């Protein structure tokens, strides 16, 4: 939104002691808060004049109750001045650059004139003042009164020394008082501020509304941290005053003064370096003014940029494959609490009356009624029957959440716009939010204890906007690359593969059963096979029921091995998929058909050419069909899926032995200095590279041997090859050989001198000594291999931890920098002031979400469509 008024500048300034006294309604002198009867003590920290927080009381200053009284400031007269910690740096600069006697800036008259001239009318005048201060600091003698200057030293956190003696805050204050107002600009200060105000004589006491006390159930009062701190200040202040009056020894007064300085400093910030943080009696560190503002939970980030909201819920999530993917299952006990504002119209009058009658006790009920004059009736206490009768168009009913309501569903970290989407409610029993598995990749959700948030938009406008912009269906295509990111996952792929293999034949009962579970009318086509009078249907036929009748498509499935000469239709592995007029003729359905974030030829075509509605229907059905098929046909995987025959095992061992021998030869060649260095590499680097090469090769070779025995009759292999879950590499590591472990892209080499572990000789460069794991996960790792594996694994963990931290911070900065940019109707990208950032969005004006995988038009598809005919 373009702002109505532009904030031109904000000015922060210092309060003068006079201003503080003028603002104050009372001086605070008593360190106590309440007397024995629980009444606030006059001129104490809870003085009635400072405002009220408890209901039923009135403020002595404004007469308002806790709702209308904003609170009023008080003040503490300090017995001795103390430095304001946040200004020590400025004070130090001022002391260094002004004369100790006359208080003038240590600049010659002509320098002064020149710099003032330079400053004149400049927006960044303070840059000139930095120069002025730098010059003045170096002066040994005052150009105005001729006084010899002594070096001022600053000892953290708040002590100033001049020569040998210490400068007390009183000394500093008198010095700062002497600085002339006309010199202030040169010193980098605004002339409306006096520098001596940086040394406090009077302390402002915030109203009680800023530091409310809490009454526990036991009746014990617990004060706010700020109040505790102020009590400390008053107590020490009092002791200091008494001691001074009694003429106590100098030393004692100094000590108390220092203590007062400490308390006032920690009152402003309890995180000053070199100052031990002030603690509560329990040992807890106090949260004072600075901590209230700073950081993620501070006032700015925690309460102003973001805040807690009503009409929201949070719960553990669990999966429900029977939900549509745009639905969310909401437990009834949550729906009983959340409400939606529903306007009463002549159309829903009776329905609303019934909801009001049911009230808060029965589930589909209502919580509040708002009459046209804005009065709220709480249905817990009101006469519901009477209210229901009074209901007429113009009333608003806050009714419970129910099926079909639009809600926003979110999982943190909210890294992209798909992290919060609009779902439709399905109220169900249980205690968790339920979601369809197809949206898990978007939220990056799993069910190992993840929790998610739910928000209920209240106005009709908000609901419609959420539905149009944020509905799950409208997020199927990723705005990042213009392809589907919602789609089948895991079992959806396996199930579809099992179903569409050519060996799958189903009798009438099973075929109908599957279609029913998929949620479609079980209208079967002609049976493909009739054997001994029994009709059988192929899985492909059942799958085809879900396809649009005019769909034509040909592509290679994920299981395609990329044979040098493709047999196309004749492919005996069923890797060549042909769909003709909505009929799956050849090939199997796997990841390349409809897996999220994969190639998903079929699914991509569905979304882009049949529209979101038709595509959603397809996905809802096909996922249920696949899961039902997997259940019916049976699918399981276990540890013996990675078994390979003894001969294969021996072949692998041979290969590994060969490789180790080759490594030994390389090392010998290296030792004899016969190794030919690679261009740009040292001899040692060459050796390392050659060894790594050899060992990487042997792992692959071992894998190849194992793969010969890992065929598509093996469930684990089915998952890997169809792209449902896992990869062939995962399998070969389990079955054959884990391979070389590495840290920072090198073989393991750190630890002791010249060796990783004491079990090896120093400078042993052999395969085993540098982290080659020849065992497979299934056989188990040897102790040393296990150690190497842990070292390699650790690097991965550290990397992810570091990456998330860094990318999180980077994203925060990017969002802050880009949040006001928007695309105008003329296609330009502008910021909130209308300043052009890009003259045409993305330079081509294309919305990536509406492109075909990043391309504005796909010419081959266009041609195909115009000349007609699907198959090539």
């Amino acid at each position, binding site marked *: 939104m373009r702002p109505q008024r532009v904030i031109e500048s904000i000015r922060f300034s210092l309060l003068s002691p006079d201003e503080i006294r003028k603002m104050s309604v009372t001086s605070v002198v008593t360190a106590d808060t309440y007397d024995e009867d629980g009444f606030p003590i006059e001129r104490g920290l809870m003085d009635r004049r400072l405002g009220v927080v408890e209901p039923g009381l009135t403020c002595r200053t404004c007469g308002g109750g806790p709702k209308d009284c904003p609170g009023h400031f008080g003040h503490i007269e300090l017995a001795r001045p103390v430095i304001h910690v946040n200004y020590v740096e400025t004070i130090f600069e001022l002391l260094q650059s002004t004369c100790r006697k006359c208080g003038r800036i240590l600049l010659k008259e002509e320098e002064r004139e020149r710099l003032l001239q330079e400053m004149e009318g400049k927006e960044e005048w303070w840059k000139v003042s930095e120069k002025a201060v730098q010059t003045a600091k170096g002066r040994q003698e005052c150009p105005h009164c001729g006084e010899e200057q002594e070096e001022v030293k600053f000892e953290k956190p708040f002590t100033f020394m001049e020569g040998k003696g210490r400068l007390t805050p009183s000394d500093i204050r008198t010095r700062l008082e002497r600085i002339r107002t006309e010199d202030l600009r040169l010193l980098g200060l605004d002339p409306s501020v006096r520098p001596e105000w940086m040394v406090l004589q009077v302390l402002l006491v915030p109203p009680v509304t800023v530091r409310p006390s809490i009454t526990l159930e036991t009746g014990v009062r617990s004060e706010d941290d700020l109040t505790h701190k102020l009590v400390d200040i008053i107590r020490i202040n009092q002791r200091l005053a008494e001691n001074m009056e009694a003429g106590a020894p100098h030393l004692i007064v100094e000590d108390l003064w220092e203590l007062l300085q400490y308390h006032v400093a920690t009152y402003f910030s309890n995180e000053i370096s070199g100052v031990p943080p002030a603690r509560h009696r329990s040992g807890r560190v106090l949260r004072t003014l600075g901590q209230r503002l700073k950081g993620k939970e501070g006032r700015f980030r925690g309460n102003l940029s973001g805040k807690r909201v009503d009409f929201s819920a949070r719960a553990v999530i669990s999966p429900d494959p029977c939900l549509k993917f745009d639905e969310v299952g909401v437990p009834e006990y949550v729906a009983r609490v959340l409400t939606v504002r529903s306007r009463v119209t002549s159309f829903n009058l009776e329905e609303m009356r019934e909801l009001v009658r049911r009230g808060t006790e029965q589930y589909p009920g209502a919580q509040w009624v708002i009459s046209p004059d804005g009065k709220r009736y709480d249905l817990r206490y009101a006469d519901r029957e009477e209210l229901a009768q009074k209901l007429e168009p113009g009333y608003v009913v806050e009714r419970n959440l129910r099926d079909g309501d639009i809600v926003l569903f979110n999982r943190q970290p909210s890294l992209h716009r798909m992290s919060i989407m609009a779902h439709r409610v399905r109220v169900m029993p249980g205690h968790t939010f339920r979601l369809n598995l197809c949206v898990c990749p978007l939220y990056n959700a799993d069910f190992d204890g993840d929790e998610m948030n739910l928000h209920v938009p209240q106005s009709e406008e908000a609901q419609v906007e959420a539905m149009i912009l944020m509905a799950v269906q409208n997020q199927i295509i990723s705005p990042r690359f213009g392809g589907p990111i919602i789609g089948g996952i895991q079992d959806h792929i396996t199930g579809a593969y099992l179903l569409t293999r050519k060996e799958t034949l189903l009798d009438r009962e099973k075929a109908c059963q599957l279609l029913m579970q998929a949620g479609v009318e079980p209208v079967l086509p002609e049976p493909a096979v009739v054997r001994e009078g029994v009709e059988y249907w192929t899985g492909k036929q059942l799958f085809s029921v879900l396809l649009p009748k005019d769909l034509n498509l040909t592509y290679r499935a994920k299981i395609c091995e990329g044979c040098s000469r493709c047999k196309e239709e004749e492919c005996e592995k069923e890797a060549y998929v042909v769909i003709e007029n909505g009929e799956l003729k050849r090939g199997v359905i796997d990841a390349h058909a409809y897996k999220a974030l994969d190639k998903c030829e079929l699914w991509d075509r569905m979304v882009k050419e049949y529209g979101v509605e038709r595509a959603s229907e397809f996905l809802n059905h096909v996922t249920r069909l696949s899961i039902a098929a997997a259940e019916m046909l049976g699918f399981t995987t276990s540890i013996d899926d990675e078994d390979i025959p003894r001969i294969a095992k021996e072949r692998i061992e041979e290969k590994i032995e060969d490789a180790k021998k080759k490594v030994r030869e390389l090392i010998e060649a290296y030792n004899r200095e016969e190794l030919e260095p690679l261009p740009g590499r040292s001899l040692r680097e060459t050796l390392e590279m050659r060894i790594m090469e050899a060992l990487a090769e042997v792992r692959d070779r071992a894998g190849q041997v194992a793969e010969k025995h890992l065929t598509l009759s093996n469930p684990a292999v089915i998952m890997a090859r169809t792209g449902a879950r896992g990869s062939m590499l995962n399998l070969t590591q389990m079955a054959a050989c884990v391979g070389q472990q590495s840290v920072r892209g090198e073989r393991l080499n750190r630890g002791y001198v010249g060796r990783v572990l004491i079990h090896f000789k120093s400078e042993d460069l052999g395969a085993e000594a540098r982290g080659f794991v020849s065992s497979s996960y299934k056989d188990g790792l040897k102790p040393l291999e296990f150690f190497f594996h842990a070292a390699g694994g650790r690097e991965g963990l550290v990397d992810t931890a570091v990456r998330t931290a860094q990318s999180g911070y980077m994203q925060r900065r990017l969002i802050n920098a880009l949040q006001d940019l928007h695309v105008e109707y003329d296609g330009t990208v502008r910021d909130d002031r209308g300043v*052009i950032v890009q003259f045409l969005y993305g330079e081509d004006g294309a919305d990536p979400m509406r492109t075909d995988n990043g391309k504005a038009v796909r010419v081959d598809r266009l041609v195909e469509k115009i000349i007609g005919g699907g198959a090539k």
Partner: protein
Amino acid sequence: MGGRMSEELDPRGHVLVPEHRVLSKEEGEEVLRRYRVKPHQLPLIKSSDPVARAIGAKPGDIVEIKRESFTAGRALAYRYVVEG
């Protein structure tokens, strides 16, 4: 920073420097009209910018830049020349 350097080295020949051109007054006004902006709402370029100096752009001018674009092949951008 010596002025001598820029006199000797013309950045316009460099492969990474896109083509810059100072627009005539009429062309400049046309650009402002087309995008309905005031001059300061355009991206800025300092008159001390090496390319701006090479093409003799003065504060108040509008410079047209023809860039190679990954998405569009060729893209036009305009910059308002400011003092500096």
